[in-house]
């Protein structure tokens, strides 16, 4: 058990990651792209639950019950060289900095090679986009090489808002590799199709094979069942001024 500025991290099982190792983050964001893709990966790879994160300061008094067992609001799953961290709750603005710092600290402590952040990139008329485009960004040479190997276009200009933005800046400052995968997504609705695009890239990066057909077939059901999480995520993102992502940074307009 470790305390980090209002958060408590529990490792309930011992695990050792093979190298190169990846820490995939499933924090609720635009289109719930990270939440859907990381949960689907955990389920498909039958990953082992190895711990979680709780906070009496930042989270409401909630216990998640799954398969008759009480679980933490943020859960950690592991298999071979992949550690997945999934949050059942959107991260509030006040929790963003402490949680982001804690995750980067923990990645450093576990000797993670690359932190991987899937990010939904809200596009206003997503209904008219047949296949969501994907882009990549990395804070290290090795990360850039991985992105070019999987053939993903670079994310050149724009804003990122929320926990993934803090993690990106903090990883760069500490010289830790952070690979960010962006996928065009609905701004206000869950977007399993965007999660499929992200998973297509993640499976190449992690060198794993999973069947994406059930996710495509169950897309509408997933959208229906994740409405409450999307509603709360939207509420939090609006407070974090997520609308900035629709704008162009000043220094790149010339």
């Amino acid at each position, binding site marked *: 058990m470790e305390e980090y500025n209002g958060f408590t991290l529990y490792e309930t099982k011992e695990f050792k990651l093979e190298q190169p190792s990846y820490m995939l983050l499933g924090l609720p964001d635009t289109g719930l792209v990270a939440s859907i893709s990381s949960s689907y990966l955990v389920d498909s790879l039958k990953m082992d639950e190895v711990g979680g994160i709780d906070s009496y300061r930042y989270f409401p008094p909630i216990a998640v019950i799954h398969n008759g067992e009480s679980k933490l609001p943020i859960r950690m799953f592991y298999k071979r060289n992949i550690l997945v961290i999934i949050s059942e709750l959107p991260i509030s603005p*006040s929790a963003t900095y402490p949680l982001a710092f804690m995750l980067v600290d923990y990645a450093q402590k576990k000797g993670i090679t690359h932190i991987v952040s899937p990010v939904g990139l809200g596009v206003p008329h997503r209904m008219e986009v047949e296949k969501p485009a994907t882009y990549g960004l990395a804070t290290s040479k090795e990360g850039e090489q991985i992105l070019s190997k999987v053939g993903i276009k670079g994310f050149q200009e724009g804003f990122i808002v929320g926990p993934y933005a803090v993690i990106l800046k903090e990883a760069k400052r500490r010289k830790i590799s952070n690979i960010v995968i962006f996928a065009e997504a609905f701004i206000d609705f869950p977007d399993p199709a965007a999660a499929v695009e992200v998973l297509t890239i993640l499976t190449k990066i992690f060198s794993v094979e999973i069947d994406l057909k059930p996710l495509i077939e169950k897309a509408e059901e997933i959208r229906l069942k994740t409405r409450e999480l999307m509603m709360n995520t939207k509420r939090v993102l609006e407070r974090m001024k997520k609308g900035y992502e629709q704008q162009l940074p000043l220094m790149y307009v010339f």
Partner: protein
Amino acid sequence: MSSRRIRDMIREFEREIEETIEEIIDSIVGTYEARPLWSKDGSLEPLISVVEKEDKYVITIDLPLANLKTLSITGKYNYIELRCKLKHRVKLSEWPMSRTEFTEYRKIIKLPENADVANFEVKKYVEYSIIEIIVPKKG
């Protein structure tokens, strides 16, 4: 003490103030909405997004698993009422509180007084099960 160290300390102090302000806002407005988007009568509330443009309101509504052929929209006063049947009955989970089987979407959307709800247009994006209701503003 070096100027860099002082700058770092100021930055840290600023961040602590920001975090405290956000915590206060969290405790006042509440971060999470506990309201469920379903009702015991078998109806579901869809997610919606309302965008105000210069001359109209654009309401986008996510209706996964809906049978859009059964879509019914009415406009009265400054309200838009929507109903749409699901393609099949849906159960949300095995939790005791979700014994209900859901059969339709239902939503009443309140718009500002200048919305001309008698003259709305509907665009259907059938492959996504999403609709857009365009409500002009009164001239």
